């Protein structure tokens, strides 16, 4: 257990940041899924190729014909992207003065621009079959991930980072778009290349005879784009394959695909599907039906099937006109059917497997797979999504070139000259090619604009802002993983359930309560996402050596054999017994590193069962899988296990749970299942579980230390706690993740006592002296951006210049300097000048006023130039500092979901005190505990007190104590040794009378967080103020100085109390009280009008009824103004409203 605060060590690290390592290397692991996935775009695996190269290869060639000539098609031009490159961020080429051409992230943050690099594509084209022409084409600038291999910060350590104005432990993993840090959120998607059996009622809507049964597989191409194939079961026993192409769904009979994939016979198909299980009449009946029903198509050979498919899909596939139907059919199979496999034979085998699994689902031999279980899920990584979008945009660009050429041909075919290279380059310049801008848009808004849908279920919400409110929040952004926006609208709550399969991968505690509960999860802190492609070339050989039969024998006629798959490719069959043996051997080799079995290989052995999951041995080596380390009992080594295999493994949590002969693995520590933030809750195992959830939320709302490079940040709003401390009581991981660099609260002396009554209902009393000494003192930084280029008319010269012209009064000059910008440190009240500029056309000085209701102090003024540094100053960024000393109504919380509001700042002399003269900083009420059961807070108080007395840091890692060795005893002994009561109680005296209090009081040290919810942002009060001009009633809204609605239910309660005067006060006098003339004779409210008395002496007005033509019956009555409005509205509809006026 650590007992030191490592103060000197940390000070040294801060003074002399290292050039060779990070102070907290563990922190760099946090963003790995983001960073590695982005790096894989340009470098995937060992070679020099990246995902982008694979994507470009997959896009292939485009062909256009000009229609000139006899054969109808005419000349052909073929073009394709040969290669693609992304440059590191650099200064605009128009800039000629810069010596250093690199742009660093901090500059982008401060200048509110995007951190981006130039995207270039080598485009090749050839005329007919002539020589290949090449051109390098600029495709705009794409946003780049910080600290990726395309970032200037790549490979830098603390010292280098600090020199470039970054945090010393900067992790990267985000993008900077318009100065804002954005993260592509991790998303849960179905596990790739694995067949899942699904029963879903909506399948019946696909067409007549469609049943709820289906088998689905999300196939992933090497470039990480994916396509889902589903085999549907029809009630007549038939099977149909469904896939979506450009958001359009297509269904094809399974047999047609089987026959088109390879040259095969009905017998071969029957044998493959039956696997010798001829006694299973359910199966044989259906296979027979499958084959029989296909006879209606009259397609007998592979070629005829391909031709049939090609004919139907020619338009859909948008292929070159000179391709034959057979070629189009092959193209369809290549691009839309089981795209993770290359060979037709492999596709055939897998499709057969899918049909077999489907039939066994229908017959009840196996159960459906749960798509909500992490077993069948993987992660959509930011970099992969980025690559997918980039690929599609490149594809679209090529398509738009094709469209442009076609338009040219249609309009003026004489100008179209494929021979002339200038024509093609001309087309390229005509076609919009800003691919980079599209990616910037995606990152800025999170909206996916896509023709294909990218096999994803949502179009929005892909990116989030990485708020640096405090370090907990910041870190959680990188670890959060969303189920998908689609599921947020589902009425059923099954998707939100915490499943046992999630153990160790998703944190059971760290999820928000409310609408995103269970959908927005966080990765457990030891959970990793695999990103490197694994070398599995040795697997077939190893499997064969273990007795797995080869897939060339796809009819083995052994119904008891199960399938062995590697990444969705059938690599053999074996009996279930030997499958177990194979999996055990592979695991042993994997852990011991023998036979080059990669450590991240997932060995999912599914045993046979009665109506359980479909058995088999499923091996996974692909990226984007969640993996976590556990200890392999056989040799004590680390075994990385995946979410698929974990379900059928025997992993003990604690040592005493190990069952000899059964358990194969053990957890390294039980805290591995918690997320980073959940791990920070001290003694969380003592708390009632919802409280730990609340703490995870509140920890992220705490006013803390957002950054250590504050003067290089331009966030819109930043909260800072000035007097942050390291907690006395903290878990081991606190150091591991370097949270001492970003303190989040203050150690407070907390007494649990009902004193003065100001601590009722979760209120807390703050010691006035403690407040005066700076407890919880915070600052809010707000940014104001003034951009004069918004005023500029495009094409006109600059007409607005920052500065003061003559004739500006003295008061303004007190705040603003001659350059029109405020002095640093000057205090601005609402209405004070923020900055000033001169309008050249009028010569007038225009003062921009500070609007905020609170006084702000000018902290920094940042002058922002343009990219080429060629124009005069047009944009300034002014950072204002708003002091937020704690006041009554501000929210505080301990680390146990125990939030409270400061109710009083109580004078220190009146506070209770202990024999040693210690006064509490904070008083909370004992009633906060019985119902909430946050025993962890008591233990923290105890540990904190003992730690403070002995000067040691206390370890608060959960699950360290048990019934034999209790925390209360451990810390009780420490307290006793310091001369204090064993249980943390102390006799206390009333500060007012000096008398000893009747009971001893529980007092100790608890780490308190100040939450960002402060009354200054929330109070709403009004006496009189703006009114709505139609109804004359008070307006609503805090910003507009409006009121809070006194609604129907409030009215009802006043009625029930019989307090009619108060009712009138609220609804009439304080609302829209008005006086109106009414005619007693006709009872009308609208007919009285004022007429001028024809007299030169007085200008007195006379009110007269227009209906009765007399002023005799005019009276003045008090009515709500809306009533008058109602009357006129009714009148406009021809309804008369009559008032009976009686004295």
């Amino acid at each position, binding site marked *: 257990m650590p007992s030191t605060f490592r103060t000197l060590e940390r000070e040294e690290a801060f003074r002399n940041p290292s050039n060779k390592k990070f102070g907290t290397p563990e922190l760099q692991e946090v963003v790995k899924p983001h960073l590695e996935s982005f790096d894989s775009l340009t470098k995937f695996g060992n070679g020099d190729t990246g995902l982008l190269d694979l994507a470009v290869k997959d896009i292939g060639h485009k062909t256009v014909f000009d229609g000139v000539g006899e054969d109808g098609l005419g000349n052909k031009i073929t073009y394709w992207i040969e290669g693609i490159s992304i440059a590191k961020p650099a200064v605009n080429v128009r800039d000629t003065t810069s010596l250093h051409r690199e742009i660093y992230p901090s500059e982008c943050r401060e200048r509110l621009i995007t951190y981006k690099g130039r995207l270039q594509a080598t485009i090749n084209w050839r005329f007919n079959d002539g020589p290949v022409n090449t051109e390098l084409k600029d495709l705009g600038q794409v946003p780049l991930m910080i600290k990726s291999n395309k970032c200037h910060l790549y490979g830098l350590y603390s010292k280098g980072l600090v020199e470039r104005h970054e945090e010393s432990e900067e992790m990267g993993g985000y993008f900077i778009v318009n100065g804002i840090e954005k993260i592509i959120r991790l998303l849960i998607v179905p596990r790739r290349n694995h067949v899942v059996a699904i029963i879903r009622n909506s399948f019946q809507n696909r067409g007549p005879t469609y049943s709820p049964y289906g088998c689905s597989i999300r196939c992933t191409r090497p470039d990480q784009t994916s396509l889902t194939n589903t085999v549907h079961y029809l009630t007549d026993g038939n099977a149909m394959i469904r896939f979506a192409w450009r958001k359009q769904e297509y269904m094809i009979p399974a047999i047609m695909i089987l026959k088109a994939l390879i040259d095969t016979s009905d017998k071969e198909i029957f044998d493959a599907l039956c696997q010798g299980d001829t006694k299973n009449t359910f199966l044989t009946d259906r296979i027979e039906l499958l084959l029989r029903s296909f006879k209606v198509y009259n397609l007998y050979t592979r070629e005829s099937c391909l031709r049939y498919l090609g004919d139907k899909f020619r338009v859909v596939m948008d292929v070159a006109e000179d391709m034959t139907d057979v070629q189009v059919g092959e193209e369809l199979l290549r691009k839309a059917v089981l795209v993770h496999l290359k060979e037709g034979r492999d596709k055939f085998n897998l499709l057969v497997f899918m049909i077999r699994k489907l039939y066994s689902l229908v017959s009840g031999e196996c159960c459906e797979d749960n798509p909500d279980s992490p077993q069948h899920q993987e992660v959509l990584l930011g970099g992969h999504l980025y690559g997918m979008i980039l690929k599609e945009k490149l594809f679209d660009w090529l398509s738009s070139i094709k469209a442009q050429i076609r338009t040219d041909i249609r309009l003026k075919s004489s100008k179209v000259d494929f021979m002339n290279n200038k024509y093609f380059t001309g087309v390229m310049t005509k076609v919009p090619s800003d691919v980079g801008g599209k990616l910037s848009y995606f990152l800025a808004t999170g909206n996916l604009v896509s023709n294909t849908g990218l096999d994803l279920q949502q179009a929005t919400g892909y990116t989030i802002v990485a708020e640096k409110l405090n370090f907990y929040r910041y870190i959680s952004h990188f670890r959060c993983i969303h189920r998908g926006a689609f599921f947020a609208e589902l009425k059923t709550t099954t998707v939100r359930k915490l499943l046992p399969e999630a153990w160790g991968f998703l944190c059971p505690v760290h999820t928000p309560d409310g609408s995103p509960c269970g959908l927005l999860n966080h990765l457990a802190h030891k959970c990793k996402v695999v990103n490197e492609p694994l070398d599995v070339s040795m697997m077939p050989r190893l499997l064969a050596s273990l007795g797995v039969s080869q897939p060339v024998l796809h009819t083995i006629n052994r119904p008891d054999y199960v399938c062995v798959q590697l990444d969705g490719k059938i690599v053999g069959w074996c009996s279930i017994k030997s499958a177990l043996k194979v999996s055990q051997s592979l695991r042993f080799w994997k852990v011991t590193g023998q036979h080059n079995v990669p450590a991240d290989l997932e060995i999912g052995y599914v045993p046979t069962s009665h109506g359980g999951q479909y058995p088999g041995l499923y091996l996974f080596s692909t990226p984007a899988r969640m993996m976590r380390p556990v200890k392999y009992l056989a040799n004590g080594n680390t075994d990385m296990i995946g979410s698929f295999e974990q379900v059928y493994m025997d992993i003990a949590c604690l040592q005493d749970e190990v069952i000899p002969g059964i358990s194969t693995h053990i957890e390294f520590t039980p805290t591995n299942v918690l997320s980073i933030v959940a791990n920070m809750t001290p003694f969380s195992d003592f708390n009632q579980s919802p409280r730990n959830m609340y703490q995870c939320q509140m920890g992220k709302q705490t006013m803390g230390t957002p950054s250590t490079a504050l003067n290089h940040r331009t966030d819109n709003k930043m909260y800072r706690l000035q007097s942050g401390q390291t907690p006395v009581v903290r878990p081991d991981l606190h150091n591991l993740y370097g949270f001492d660099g970003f303190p989040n609260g203050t150690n407070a002396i907390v007494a649990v006592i009902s004193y003065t009554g100001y601590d009722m209902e979760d209120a807390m009393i703050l010691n006035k002296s403690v407040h005066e000494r700076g407890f919880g003192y915070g600052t809010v930084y707000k940014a104001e951006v003034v951009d004069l280029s918004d005023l500029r008319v495009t094409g006109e010269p600059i007409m607005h210049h920052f500065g003061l012209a003559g004739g500006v009064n003295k008061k303004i000059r007190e705040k603003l300097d001659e350059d029109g910008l405020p002095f640093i440190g000057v205090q601005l009240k609402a209405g004070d000048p923020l900055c000033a500029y001169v309008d050249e056309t009028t010569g007038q000085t225009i003062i921009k006023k500070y609007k905020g209701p609170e006084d702000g*102090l000018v902290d920094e003024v940042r002058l922002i130039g343009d990219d080429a540094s060629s124009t005069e100053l047009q944009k300034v960024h002014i950072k204002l500092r708003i*002091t937020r000393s704690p006041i009554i109504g501000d929210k505080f919380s301990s680390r146990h979901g125990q939030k409270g509001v400061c109710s009083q700042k109580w004078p220190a*002399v009146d506070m209770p005190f202990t024999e040693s*003269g210690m006064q509490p900083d904070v008083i909370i009420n004992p009633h906060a505990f019985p119902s909430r059961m946050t025993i962890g807070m008591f233990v923290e108080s105890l540990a904190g007190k003992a730690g403070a007395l002995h000067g040691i840091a206390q370890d608060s890692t959960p699950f360290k104590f048990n019934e034999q060795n209790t925390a209360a005893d451990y810390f009780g002994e420490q307290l006793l040794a310091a001369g*204090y009561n064993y249980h943390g109680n102390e006799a206390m005296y009333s500060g007012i009378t000096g008398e*000893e209090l009747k009971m001893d009081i529980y007092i100790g040290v608890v780490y308190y967080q100040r939450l960002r919810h402060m009354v200054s942002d929330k109070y709403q009060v009004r006496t009189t103020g703006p009114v709505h001009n139609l109804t004359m009633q008070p307006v609503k809204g805090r910003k507009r100085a409006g009121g809070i609605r006194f609604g129907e239910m409030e009215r009802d309660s006043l009625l029930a109390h019989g307090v009619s005067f108060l009712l009138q006060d609220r609804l009439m006098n304080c609302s829209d009280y008005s006086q109106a003339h009414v005619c007693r004779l006709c009872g009308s409210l609208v007919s009285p009008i004022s007429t001028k008395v024809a007299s030169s002496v007085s200008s007195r007005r006379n009110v007269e009824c227009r209906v009765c033509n007399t002023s005799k019956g005019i009276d003045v009555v008090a009515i709500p103004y809306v009533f008058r409005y109602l009357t006129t509205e009714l009148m406009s509809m021809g309804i008369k409203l009559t008032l009976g006026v009686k004295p």
Partner: protein
Amino acid sequence: MENAYGTLSGPNITIRELQKDKISFILSDTDLSVANSLRRVMIAEVPTIAIDMVEIETNTTVLADEFIAHRLGMIPIESTDVERIKYTRDCTCSQYCSECSVELTLHVKCTDDRTRDVTSRELISSNPQFQPVLTDKNDSGILIVKLRKGHELSIKCIAKKGVAKEHAKWSPVSGVAFEYDPYNKLRHTHYWIEEDEKKEWPLSKNAALEAPPDPNAPFDYNAKPDRFYFSSETVGSLQPEEVVSMAMKTLLDKLAYVQMQLKEEVDMKKQDHTSWGY
């Protein structure tokens, strides 16, 4: 001399320990209310000098103006001669003057490549009697801010007389320990125990100064607390014995003020009576 109202000999004080910044004493033969009054006055009503206003001329340091001002306020200032300074509210001047305030200036600029610490030692007082507290000659003072090359801090501080009732910075003590009846003979409190009181509740140090109670003795429900164990640590602005004596003086002044008011009231009443012809 004992009777039902305690001893008539009046309060006694015994100093047990006296150090530069610490005092322990026993106040005996007096009532709880008197003892508590002394405690309260020691904490909150003994006047000292502390920086109250800061005029910032230049501040290019990493800390914000208001934050430096707050730090300056917390620096203890030698206040032994605090009686010579008036409260600003009692002074005839319009804002502040040398009679009701002390001016301290600080001007530091870092020209070195090394980090420069600005401490309370660099505050130059206009009045030599009121200097920032230093424990000894080697004391480097209290750190205010750290400067890097090019940073400059130039400020003028106005220190004023005040009491901790208004702001904690004027408190002469960091805490006052106060205890009576260490054996709980009076049963004012109830010790909560799990198994064994002796094991779970270690006796306080003050228990050694009293005779342990006879477990068989009957409970004396008439007994009142009359021995109060004080212990206090100062922040340095005043000597510990000064704090105690000034606290007593403050108490006396308060009583004197009440006495004066009483006299005035009586005189007024008497005048009223005479005017009515009695």
